[in-house]
């Protein structure tokens, strides 16, 4: 009782709200415990729940807490977080769950019917067989109606558009088999194929389930990296009061306050304040841009130095980002016309199979068999040729390859992406952020002695400026320990100043303009002055990767928005032609020209300016450091500083297509052997069940060979 008195509950229960934050830094059980136990200690937060797969935290909290408060609470626990828009209803997850449910039902039914069928095959007769058939029908009919729905729906959708896909022969086969078996059961016949029909559904659903789970995982991985432009901003009203306002409520002429380290939520014009903005998401350039009062600023830009007051000029759908998004949407429409390998096979396969079944029906009628017997044979032909192995051939290979690639840090978002990647004939690369790391790397750090380096690290740790972050990363990678400094202060727009044992030290903007490199900072220790320069370094294996792609028969090209002069060095290092000064629409036009020449272009890019080209490419890849929009558009996203995943993914994709074609050949070979048996009327339910399982197993086993494909 005493404890209750110590922790009084709030008198009136407050309506709690749920917010989602992306927390990419969650890696282990310790992180989960830290977040879930640490957050509820913050006043106003009721509970927190981590979703490890999506790297997301769901927080139930008092509506008085704004997203920046939650972000700050997570920062105090040591995790960087970004507020996410309300995910709403996750369509993909719901679809995944529906397939899983259908699979469970089909599995349950297949096992029970098989149990009854085994008794029949081992000699049950007369009334017992009759009862077992009825029981099978009782289980199979609702199962086919429920678990077959995904196939029936897809088949119907295809037929209505006058096309055919893999689902059409599946649906016809399953429905005819079930119907015929029901007729046999009612008339007291010797054979019923309920087990075959349901087992077929089970195998196919297994393939579909694997496919959707793998895609769901890749999507969740990408969504975790996704940072929203800005969920809102602090709006200043007439009286000078500031109020947190959501991005979709921002209107032109509003005045918003942007603190250092925050992203802008709308396009606008600087009113007061002096800072620099990181607009790498737009241009791909890592150097921050200085803004003064009166300068135009774009939504999504990261404010680096000091606080800014901005007058909103355009918000929501009118911003520059939204414009590029529209361009991307238009460019991406061509991709939806791609016909997948399995469906291309089905175009030939389905008419052949149906013709064969019809022919055997007619031939048996002519040969003098009864209508009933001829129909039975036609149905058994359909059942034996039902593309069970074909339906598994593609998803099984795809899932194995996607799993292997995921272990290498390559996320495949779209099922057909690997097929399209394998077909590509030309690779077009963006420069900044794709061939290069897209972040400044300090040069000539080894000119400094150990004392200077530890002071430099201590200074760099005190700031969030991109150059400070670059210095910190480089120095920490060398194992430098930071020195203790006194009176560290950051002067916005100038730099960092401190004392080291009474000697003034600073890391600041160079006093004289530096003609050699645009990116530089000046380190002073007492009277000593060092100019530190930065470059955007080439990814460590860029040259080898481009050479590997050329060896694989692809043409390579660099398309950049940068000045041609800046491209010379990189073009020489990689031995590739480079085109400069391309705006987003120019890149799109370049891709269209290549397409018109008959090339299938693999686009590799990262910036928002590559977005339309990524959408238009036959296949597209983006590094995980890319802008959100690019990651969303690209078919494949790869992690890490190396470019090698591009070549690895291409090799794996080509191996996958090879195995898929082998699987098709296996499935057709099995049909060549089994179809004559069916036409001759020798296929009993037992033969059908065995043949179906064996062919599926062979196909899956062949696909498993791909497990080592991402080497």
């Amino acid at each position, binding site marked *: 009782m005493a404890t209750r008195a110590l922790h009084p509950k709030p008198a009136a229960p407050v309506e709690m709200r749920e917010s989602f934050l992306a927390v990419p830094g969650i890696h*282990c*059980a*310790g992180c*989960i*415990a830290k977040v*879930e*136990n640490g957050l509820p200690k913050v006043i106003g937060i009721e509970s927190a729940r*981590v*979703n*490890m*797969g*999506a790297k997301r935290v769901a927080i139930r909290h008092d509506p008085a807490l704004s997203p920046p408060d939650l972000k700050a609470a997570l920062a105090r626990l040591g995790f960087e977080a970004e507020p996410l828009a309300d995910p709403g209803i996750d369509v993909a*997850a719901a679809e995944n*769950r529906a397939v*899983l*449910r259908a699979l*469970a*039902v089909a599995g*349950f039914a297949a*096992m*029970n019917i098989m*149990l*009854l069928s085994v008794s029949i095959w081992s000699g049950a007769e007369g009334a*017992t067989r009759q009862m077992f058939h009825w*029981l099978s029908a009782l*289980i199979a009919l609702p199962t086919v109606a429920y678990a077959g729905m995904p196939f029936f729906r897809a088949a119907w959708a295809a037929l209505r558009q006058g096309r055919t896909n893999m689902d059409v022969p599946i649906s016809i086969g399953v429905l005819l088999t079930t119907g015929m078996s029901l007729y046999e059961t009612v008339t007291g016949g010797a054979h019923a194929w309920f087990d075959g029909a349901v087992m077929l559904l089970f195998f196919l659903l297994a393939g579909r389930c694997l496919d959707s789970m793998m895609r769901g995982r890749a999507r969740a991985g990408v969504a975790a990296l996704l940072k929203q432009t800005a969920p809102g901003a602090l709006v200043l009203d007439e009286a000078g009061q500031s109020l947190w306002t959501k991005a979709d409520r921002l209107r032109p002429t509003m005045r918003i306050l942007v603190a250092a380290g925050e992203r802008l939520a709308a396009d606008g014009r600087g009113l007061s304040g002096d800072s620099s903005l990181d607009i790498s998401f737009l241009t791909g350039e890592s150097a921050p841009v200085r803004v003064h009062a009166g300068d135009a600023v774009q939504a999504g830009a990261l404010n680096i130095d000091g606080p800014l007051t901005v007058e909103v000029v355009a918000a929501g759908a009118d911003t520059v980002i939204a414009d590029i998004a529209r361009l991307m949407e238009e460019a991406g429409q061509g991709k939806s016309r791609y016909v997948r390998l399995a469906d291309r096979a089905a175009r030939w396969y389905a008419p052949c199979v149906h013709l064969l079944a019809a022919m055997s029906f007619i031939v048996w009628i002519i040969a003098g068999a009864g209508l009933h017997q001829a129909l039975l044979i036609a149905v058994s032909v359909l059942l034996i040729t039902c593309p069970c192995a074909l339906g598994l051939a593609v998803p099984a290979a795809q899932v194995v390859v996607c799993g292997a690639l995921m272990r290498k840090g390559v996320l495949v978002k779209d099922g057909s992406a690997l097929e399209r990647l394998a077909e590509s004939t030309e690779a077009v690369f963006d420069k900044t952020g794709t061939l290069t790391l897209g972040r400044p790397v300090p040069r000539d750090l080894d000119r400094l002695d150990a004392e200077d380096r530890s002071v430099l690290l201590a200074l760099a740790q005190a700031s969030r400026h991109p150059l400070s972050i670059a210095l910190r990363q480089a120095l920490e990678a060398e194992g430098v320990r930071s020195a203790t400094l006194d009176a560290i202060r950051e002067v916005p727009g100038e730099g960092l100043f401190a004392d080291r044992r009474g000697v003034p030290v600073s890391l600041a903007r160079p006093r004289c303009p530096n003609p050699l490199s645009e990116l530089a900072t000046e380190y002073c220790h007492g009277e000593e002055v060092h100019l530190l320069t930065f470059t955007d370094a080439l990814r460590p294996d860029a040259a080898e990767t481009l050479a590997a792609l050329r060896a694989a028969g692809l043409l390579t090209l660099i398309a950049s928005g940068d000045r041609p002069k800046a491209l010379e060095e990189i073009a020489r290092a990689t031995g590739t032609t480079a085109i400069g000064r391309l705006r987003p629409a120019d890149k799109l036009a370049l891709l269209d020209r290549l397409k018109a020449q008959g090339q299938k272009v693999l686009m590799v890019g990262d910036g928002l300016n590559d977005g339309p080209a990524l959408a238009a490419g036959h296949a597209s890849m983006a590094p995980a450091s890319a802008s959100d929009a690019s990651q969303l558009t690209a078919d494949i996203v790869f992690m890490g500083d190396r470019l090698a995943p591009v070549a690895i993914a291409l090799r794996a994709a080509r191996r996958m297509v090879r195995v898929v074609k082998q699987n098709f050949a296996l499935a057709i070979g099995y049909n060549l052997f089994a179809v004559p048996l069916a036409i001759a009327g020798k296929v009993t339910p037992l033969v059908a069940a065995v043949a179906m399982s064996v062919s599926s197993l062979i196909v899956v086993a062949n696909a498993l060979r791909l497990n080592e494909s991402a080497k």
Partner: protein
Amino acid sequence: MTGLALLIPLALLCGLVALGAFFMALRSGQYDDLDGAAMRMLSDTEDD
């Protein structure tokens, strides 16, 4: 034959119970975060 009358419904019932349990687990979100579930069992703190 009398054995069958008892055993077959019993077998079907067992299967249905398992199916129902799977559906309940799916509905309550136990399959939403498989990676997290694998990590949580390593956690020392006994929350939820």
